[in-house]
Structures are given as C-alpha cells and as structure tokens.
C-alpha cells in the first residue's frame, strides 16, 4: 500500500533528472510583478478617497486568505511530521513548504491594518466600555503582532530544518517506525500548538470583533480549520499543475500520491462543514438575538445569502460529491478543478465573514476588490517561487516506480 518512492539514479538513466532551470520564466514573473503593481496602485488610489473602506476591507480579506494558505501549509508540514506521514517521499514535504515564503511578508502586511483601523474596526471610533480591556488598538496590535511574529519564526525554522539532509533521509524511509530527527520533533508540535492559539486570537480580533457584540466559542477553531483546508486545496492545485508542467515521469504521476492528496482535500472539507454546522445548529436552536444576527445577515437575506450558499457549494458540496470515489481523486483534471473551486471558495468565505459586518446591505465588489486581490495573489506567487523550484526538483527526482512485483 505504501507508495514507494525511490530516487532515480542519474547514472542509470544517463541524464540529469532535475529540470534545467527554475519553474517560472521571466514572462511569468513579469506578469506577477504587474499584478503586484496593479494591486498597489489600485489600493493607493482608493485608500484616500470615497472607497477607502472598501480598499481596507479587501486588504483584510486578502491578508486573511493568503496568509492563511501560507501558514496552513507549514502546519500541514508539521502535521506530516507528527503523523509520520510518508506517502510521497520528500516531495510531500516540499509541497507543504511551497508557500512558506509568503509568511514573513504577510506578517509585515498585518501591521498595515494599523493605518486603516478606523475603517475596519467599529470599536475604534465607538468603543464598547465592557470590552475595552480586550478591544483596544495598542493591545490588539501588540498581541496579534507578537503572535504572528512567533508563527513566522517557528514556520521559517521548521521549513529550514525540514530541508536538511537528515530530514530528507527520514522523509524517504517509509518503512521505518523511527521518529523524525530531534530538532523537528520539538519544533513541529510547538508550531501546531501556537497555530491553534494564535489563529484563534486572530479570528476573534480580525473577524469576530468587526461585529463586536457577536460571539461564538467555536469560531476560532472554525477559522483556523478553514485556513488549514485552504492550504490542502492550494497544495492539490499545485500538485496537479506541477504534474503537467514537469512532463515525463514525476512523483505526481503516481496515482496513489494523487489519491492521498485528494483524500486530504476531501476529508478536511467534511471537517470544515462539520464545524460550520456545529456552530449553525447551536445558534439556530438557541435563537438568542446577539448570536443569530451574524447568521441572519449572511444566510437569510439578499444580497449576502447567495454568496453564503456559494461558499458552502464551493468548499463542501463540490469537493464532497466529486471526490467521493477513488477514481476522481486520481484524475488530475477533476482534482485540479475541485481545488481551484476550493481556493476561490476560501476567498469568498473570508469575504463573507468580514465584509457583511461592515456593509450589511450591499455587496461591495468592483475594481477596488479585484485589483487588491490581484496584488496579493501576485505577491503570494512571487514569494512561493523558490518553494516551487524546490518542489519541482524533488518531484522530478522522485519518479514513480510501480512497486508490485
């Protein structure tokens, strides 16, 4: 059952197996740079004018989406180590590390919110006396800043340790029950624990506090589970693209590997809908106004209702119905399409979580949102390029060898 991955010997095949150059060409990089420039310009032009609130909302939504994917990937890496997951050799680990490059940038971008705080957090201009001890500007930026700083340091540290030679040896040896080498054994659990704590606080501060009277104890868990799932979807998408891009034989040609990636997307999508349902049914049944208004705005009345349903369709219904069987998981086109839906779904989900608190009756969507999103996307891809190069090298080296004798 274990997908045996063996490094193809360069001597045997008589040719270097690693791709000659980086994955992305100059043209691709230029396009991404143009995206970033468009985002920066779009944001700068609007942030001073009538659309300032929209610019800041788009900024917050995109920060949550892309930082969530990058951080979720590194947590997935930690999870692989903690579960001794070795179904695709080092490629599996390179895949989870792909987006880590965005984490430091995301950390810096977080502080940008300081300048838009009056337009984002309702309690800055209208403080709530009872909650002032928690909801005040200096404390919020201090605690979230420290939290994200810890996450950044731990993430980069784990990624570095994960790329050492002894870690790679362990990653390849799927038949051993020995634990991962020591520094990783300490950092991986620390990272996972900090992720849960820091991202719960981020969820409470950057999303829940936008509707300051609302509360849901599960919200933090729900929020970071969503981020974790979005990383799984993004990883699946990258795997499918990489499979085609590398051509020839590569690690992603192995149907078992594709199935395991598909299984991750499938399973955590179900977990996400479970957490959504667990919150919904408690609030629906309890029927207490301070809890229900948050859902009523989003799921019961237009204009947000349709978008909320779209989120459930994209993040759960499509992955669940299409990936239920084994064959669709192994079919790259299907897996890729489903993961693309997932990434769009998570963007929409964060949008529906954030924006209706500030704009309950209209859906602000236009050039401002599109340009800011493009900017973040471009920056995210550019930061991920070194990770993608490493992934490509690893996937091209660890070709699929059919194991059954």
């Amino acid at each position, binding site marked *: *059952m274990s997908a045996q991955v063996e490094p193809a010997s360069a001597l045997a095949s008589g040719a270097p197996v690693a791709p000659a150059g980086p994955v992305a060409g100059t043209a691709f990089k230029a396009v991404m740079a143009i995206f970033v420039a468009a985002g920066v310009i779009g944001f700068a032009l609007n942030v001073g004018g009538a659309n300032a609130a929209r610019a800041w909302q788009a900024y917050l939504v995109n920060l949550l989406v892309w930082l969530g994917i990058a951080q979720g990937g590194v947590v997935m890496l930690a999870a692989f180590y903690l579960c001794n997951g070795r179904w695709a050799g080092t490629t599996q680990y390179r895949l989870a590390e792909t987006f880590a490059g965005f984490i430091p940038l995301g950390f810096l971008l977080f502080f940008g919110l300081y300048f838009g705080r009056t337009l984002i957090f309702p309690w800055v201009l209208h403080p709530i006396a009872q909650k002032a001890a928690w909801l005040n500007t200096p404390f919020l930026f201090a605690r979230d800043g420290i939290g994200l700083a810890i996450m950044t340091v731990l993430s980069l540290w784990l990624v570095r340790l994960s790329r050492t030679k002894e870690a790679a040896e362990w990653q390849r040896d799927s038949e051993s029950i020995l634990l991962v080498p020591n520094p990783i054994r300490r950092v991986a659990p620390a990272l996972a624990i900090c992720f849960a704590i820091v991202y719960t606080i981020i969820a409470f501060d950057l999303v829940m506090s936008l509707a300051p009277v609302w509360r849901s104890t599960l919200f933090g868990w729900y929020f970071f589970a969503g981020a974790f799932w979005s990383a799984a979807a993004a990883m699946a998408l990258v795997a499918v693209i990489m499979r085609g891009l590398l051509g020839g034989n590569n690690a992603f040609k192995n149907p078992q590997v594709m199935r395991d990636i598909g299984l991750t997307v499938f399973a955590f999508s179900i977990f996400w809908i479970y957490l959504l*349902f667990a919150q*919904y*049914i408690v609030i*629906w*049944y309890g*029927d207490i106004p301070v809890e229900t208004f948050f859902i009523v705005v989003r799921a019961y009345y237009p204009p947000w209702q349709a978008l909320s349903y779209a989120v459930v369709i994209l993040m759960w219904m499509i992955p669940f119905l299409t990936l239920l069987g084994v064959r669709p998981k192994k079919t790259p086109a299907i897996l890729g399409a489903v993961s693309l839906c997932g990434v769009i779904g998570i963007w929409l989900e964060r949008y529906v979580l954030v924006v209706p608190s500030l704009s309950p009756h209209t859906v602000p969507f236009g050039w401002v949102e599109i340009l800011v999103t493009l900017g973040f996307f471009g920056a995210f891809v550019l930061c991920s390029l070194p990770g993608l190069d490493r992934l490509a090298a690893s996937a091209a080296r660890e070709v699929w060898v059919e194991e*059954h*004798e």
Partner: protein
Amino acid sequence: MTLGMSAAMEIIGSFADEHLCVRGIEDLHKAQVRNLRVFYPFPSHRIEHAMGKPKSKVRLFVLIGGITGILTALAITIGTSWEWNLVAGGKPIISWPPFIIICFELMILFGGISAVTSFLVNAGLPAFESKSGYQSRFSEDRFGVVVKCDGADSARIEKIESILRNAGAEEVLREAA
C-alpha cells in the same frame, strides 16, 4: 491411467512467503492458467493485486444502502411532522437542521448494515462446506494456490506443478477433486 477417465484434479501449492506466492500466481497467469483459488491468512494487497479482480460490488450496495437510509429518514421525519402539525419550541414544522442529523445517522446505519450483508452474500458466507484444497495452516501461516484441472491431461498437470515449484512453493500436492 484408468481407462482415460477424466477425473477432475486439484493441484495445491503451498508457500511460506507472501512474495513467493505472488510470483506463483503471476507465473500461472503468464502461462494462461486462470481460475485459481488462493488461500491466505491475512489481507494481502499484493496477492489481491496479482489476482487482478474487478472492484468489489460491495461499494455499490453501500451506496444504495446509504441513499435508502437518507430517504427513510426524510420519510419518517417529514411524515411524522406532517401527520399532526404541532409546533414545538417555536421551530418550523419541517426543521432542516435537526432532520439532517437523523438523515445522517440513518445513512450510516443503513450503509453499514448493507456493507456487512453484501460482504457476506458476495463472499458466500456463511459457508457450510469446506472449500476444496483448504488446509488448516492456510488460516495460520501458509499461502495456498489451488489450481483445478483435468486429471487426464498429465502434461498440463506437470507444467503447473513445475511453475509452482519454480516460483518457490515448499510443497505441491495432487488431490482428486
């Protein structure tokens, strides 16, 4: 040979090792010897792969069972609610969130029951007669490959026996079936 009577004959090769057993199966398949019966003491993906059977139909039955469960749950929740429209706890008569829970539970219940039943039916259990060629050690630590063939065709018998031996069978027996 007794008057050319073509008594059916069984050749039983027993292996001490899973990999050798797989080799035996593959060699027999290469020599166009089909309809094997293999006994093995634990679920072996390698042997299953070597036998190359189509996917088990149990999947289909579980799907049908699960859908039946959902429909049953919808019928009883909606049906009983409509039988006497009694508002309880200020909730709608047809309240989807709770009904989804019942649908889910009955989907699992019916799906699980049909998984076990269809496994038993497809696997021919309960079986009251011993399968020919079975030895008790095939439940313990040996792998058995049983080939049925025509007792008169001695060339074929010898060929099968030599394939099994060459693959590494520790013992090859003939038995009248």
